[in-house]
């Protein structure tokens, strides 16, 4: 299936916004493992995911055409 990946802050320095083709990934926890393998820089960074513009607070199911945002610690204000 296809998901839309959007990245912010320092993560946007090494992961650009893209359409990602993934197989065998059903949940946000699966996706995290996949992303950390494919983008080694991610492993050292605290980050949160948002699924279709909602903050992911617990492991959640991913469906085709979902939008996933990868967000490092916030630094507004």
């Amino acid at each position, binding site marked *: 299936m296809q998901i839309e990946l959007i990245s*912010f802050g320092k993560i946007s320095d090494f992961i650009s916004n893209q359409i990602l083709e993934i197989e065998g990934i059903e949940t946000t926890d699966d996706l995290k493992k996949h992303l950390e393998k494919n983008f080694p820089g991610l492993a050292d960074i605290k980050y949160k995911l948002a699924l279709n513009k909602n903050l992911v607070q617990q492991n959640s199911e991913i469906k085709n055409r979902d939008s996933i945002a990868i967000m490092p610690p916030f630094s507004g204000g």
Partner: protein
Amino acid sequence: MSEKKIKNIFVTGSIAPEFIAKSISNHSPKTSIGGHSIFLGQVRKDEVDGKLVSAVEYTAFEELALTKMHEIREAIFSKYPLSCLHVHHSLGDIKAGEICLFVFTSSKHRKPAIEACNELVERIKAELPIWGKEIFTDETHQWKENS
């Protein structure tokens, strides 16, 4: 006091002192207000490894930030007897010395305005998906981390 409409808090570029003045004078007809509390964030010309910050470039996950801000606004209005609550945050390049955050609360007596303002600033910094990129005078950058 609950406001159903999701308000935009983002402005492109810095927050002008004249905008702050206008915002203050808008409250003059609200004669039940006795105290206003304001917090302003200003971009610092920090020195990092001998390089000076010339600006901070702010980006946000705007939709998520506005939903979250709506939630915070409702929580603050439930917790404190406020007359008004306004938040403005800059996006884009804000030069050192310019204002990037404007939090403004008003209440009949001073305490709720002061406490709500403090709590808002803490929650905005901790909970809103906004990122600051410190741009140095030599055009290199580093991502800001909130302390």
